[in-house]
């Protein structure tokens, strides 16, 4: 056992390959958060008065709130006055053509494997590239416009479609929802906006790549996706950050509105810088993601969380309409000194609502992985169904796996099932694979990927390949 433990430790000490930083000319606000900071951000973005009011209301709320302390996290105190709340590459943020994209930014995205050049673009995936909270370009805009789909940066949406933004902003995640949501609401800089009109099936995958580049800045994006009746959209989100010695805060808010009979599929591959093996540096990823599903609508969250020093994230679905469906598929890997506290909330309000939760937690090195979830069946939710499966895999003896589900049922017609297991990669499994000629490293990667299969199957093809590779890289190292 001990020998393979050592090997596992070596396997899990792979280095972060997106740790480079790009020297961009950046416009950064001085550190600190006051009402003036909020006004400055709003002014920089040339926002309408109602949005400034909304931000100020959030700021006032935030001042009265306390950081949550219930998550199972060892966290360095965050000095909110030492952070800068505005950083943007010095360039016109909205571009008419990809040729206008700053070559340095283009190179950065090339390095990340996300080509922004038209000729190299991923076929059938529209990309919104966001650097330090500001959208630098959005591809395939015209194709999408033909279908009536609006896919642009949040700032553009505020100017071009204020009525849609105003109607839905904060409708799923109210400003007072939690400490980080309130903070985001006050200072959010940019993000993605999608609007799928009635009856439209979005002709391609929509995708946003987030990149934190600047130092000492918090990143606060805001994403809003609205699917009108009978529409369908699949949205992908990827994230990376440079390797820096201090912790950086990322507090995003994502709101999904799935109207009658619509479907939103939201996939995330999160690979923020996790910090080094001693726990120095890395992103604090404190994110609020929630969707509201109306009658016969479906919201599906799929996430692969391999990065960040700390992840605090519970993508949730309010199953408001009758027969609405919520899904949550998650793979979370914590190695080195990473801590992941993640899960979902499924709030059943409508009748005949269904939710399913598949969570796969992998702990390695000194990583701590917690599944925390809530399944709540309200009195009105006749005949609600939930199935939850939480599996944990422990690789090594210094890591931890925790499963903390809350199940609250107020309707006797509900059927709620929760299953969980904890296991390790079996010596016999490794031996079997090696007897068939595979190296220990390949065998380990294969078994761990197999453990995550149910979740990877939910990802769009390109992302599934990316996720598998990421997982293998995160577990990679030198096997003697």
């Amino acid at each position: 056992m001990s020998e393979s433990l050592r090997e596992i430790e070596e396997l899990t000490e792979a280095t972060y390959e997106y740790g480079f930083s790009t020297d961009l000319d950046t416009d950064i606000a001085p550190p600190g958060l006051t009402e003036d900071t909020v006004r400055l951000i709003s002014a920089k973005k040339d926002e309408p008065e109602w949005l400034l009011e909304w931000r100020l209301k959030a700021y006032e709320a935030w001042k009265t709130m306390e950081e949550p302390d219930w998550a199972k996290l060892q966290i360095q105190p965050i000095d909110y006055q030492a952070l800068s709340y505005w950083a943007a590459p010095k360039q016109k943020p909205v571009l008419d053509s990809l040729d206008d994209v700053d070559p340095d930014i283009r190179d950065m995205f090339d390095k990340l494997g996300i080509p922004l050049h038209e000729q190299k673009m991923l076929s059938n995936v529209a990309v919104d590239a966001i650097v330090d909270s500001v959208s630098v370009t959005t591809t395939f805009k015209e194709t999408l416009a033909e279908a009536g789909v609006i896919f642009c940066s949040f700032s553009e949406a505020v100017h071009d479609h204020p009525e849609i933004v105003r109607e839905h902003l904060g409708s799923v995640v109210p400003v007072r929802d939690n400490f980080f949501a309130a903070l985001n609401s006050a200072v959010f800089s940019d993000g993605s906006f999608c609007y799928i009109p009635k009856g439209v099936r979005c002709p391609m995958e929509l995708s946003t790549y987030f990149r934190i580049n600047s130092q000492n800045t918090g990143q606060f994006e805001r994403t809003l996706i609205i699917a009108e009746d009978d529409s369908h959209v699949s949205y992908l989100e990827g994230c990376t950050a440079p390797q820096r010695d201090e912790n950086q805060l990322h507090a995003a808010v994502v709101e999904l509105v799935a109207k009658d009979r619509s479907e939103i599929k939201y996939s995330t591959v999160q690979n923020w810088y996790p910090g080094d093996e001693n726990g120095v540096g890395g992103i604090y990823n404190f994110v609020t993601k929630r969707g509201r599903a109306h009658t016969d609508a479906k919201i599906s969250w799929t996430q692969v969380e391999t990065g960040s020093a700390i992840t605090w994230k519970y993508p949730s679905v309010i199953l408001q309409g009758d027969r609405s469906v919520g899904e949550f598929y998650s793979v979370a890997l914590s190695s080195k000194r990473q801590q992941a506290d993640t899960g979902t909330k499924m709030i059943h309000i409508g009748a005949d609502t269904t939710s399913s939760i598949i969570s796969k937690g992998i702990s390695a090195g000194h990583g701590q992985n917690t599944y925390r979830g809530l399944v709540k069946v309200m009195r009105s939710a006749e005949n609600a169904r939930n199935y939850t499966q939480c599996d944990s895999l422990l690789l090594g003896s210094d890591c931890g796996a925790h499963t903390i589900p809350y199940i609250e049922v107020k309707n006797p017609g509900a059927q709620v099932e929760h299953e969980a297991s904890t296991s390790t990669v079996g010596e016999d499994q490794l031996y079997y694979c090696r007897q068939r000629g595979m190296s220990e490293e390949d065998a380990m990667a294969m078994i761990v990927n197999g453990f995550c299969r149910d979740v990877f199957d939910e990802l769009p093809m390109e992302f599934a390949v990316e996720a598998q590779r990421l997982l293998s890289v995160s577990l990679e190292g030198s096997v003697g």
Partner: protein
Amino acid sequence: MNSTATAAAPELPTKRDEAWRYAPHADLAQLTFGPGGASAAVPAELEAQIPVFDGPRIVVVNGIVDPARSELATSITGLTLSTVADVLTTEPESLTRHFPTDAEPVDAFAAFNAQFGRDGAVIRVAAGATIDQPIHVVDLALPGAGHNTSSTGVVIEIGEGSEATIVETRLGHGTESGGANVRTTITLHDHATLEHIVVQDAPPAQISLSRVDVTQGANSTFRGRSFNLGASYGRVAHAVVLAGAGAHAELSGLYFGFGDQTLDQQVDIVHAAKDCSSRQLYRGVLDDSSTGIFSGGIDVQPGADGTDAEQENHNLLLSDRAEANTQPRLEILADDVACKHGATVGQLDETALYYMRSRGIPAAEARRLLINGFADQVVDHVSIDALRPWIIDRLGHADA
């Protein structure tokens, strides 16, 4: 009884305390604590409710052992029965696990118990003894007449290689609010085996709080059964530490709520040594506006390799006003472990009901059969033949 409350009353738990998340905090705040009340007259009606089976019996009324109803002198070899009050006088140092001086009480109610629970039962089994007859500790709560909530202590120590069966029955009487706060401390030495049954059925006006702390030596076996059948708020908490290698704990519980009852089960099993195993099987049946709570933890500490732990919680909701909250927790800090848990909330199987009715069984009878079948899977664990029918008879009955 404000006169007996202490100056610096401990702070009551709130909604933010995980272990008390779903408890009725306003009701708990109404309880007052003080020294054991003068032994009130036990009504015949209550006396008649006490389950009867062969074996020595100790009866505690309002926190004070009632000598007339108790048989402390026993001829069973290896068994010593005494009262907490007596042992506190003769050899208080032998009760340091029950009244620890070096650790803070886990919550306010443990603090009240440590302060006021100065009487109760002390059961000691010498090494190498097998006690054939079950030992019965009966705790009766009779609030009123200047007494609100009683505090009782039960101390159990099972010597190396010994075996015993102990039943703790908690009953109450009357329509006055108040209740009982009983704390049990169990020590199992190496290779010892104990079946420990808590049967808790207080009247709808009362609150019943039980906490059982168990420490297990190497290769010992603890079989804990709890039957939480009545009280406005009935709580049975088990904290088991598997301290010696190869120890085994098996906990099962049935909670059967009706009316406005809230029945709360809190289980925490700590795997602190290698090669220990634990099982938790809890079942809840919830009718009317009752609420059932199960919070069960498996806590595997670093180095506790070879851990084998399983946990199951199943709930039946019989009414559209009933509520079930379940929280099956796993906390794993070792890697050579096999842990799993499962929880379900559902209702009676309509197909089975239909099937039985189509065979001529009336609907109400069919329901009863299905519910009892569900509950039997816990009741069957009880080894005392005379106790099983008593429990089944009490399911869903309000006695006052």
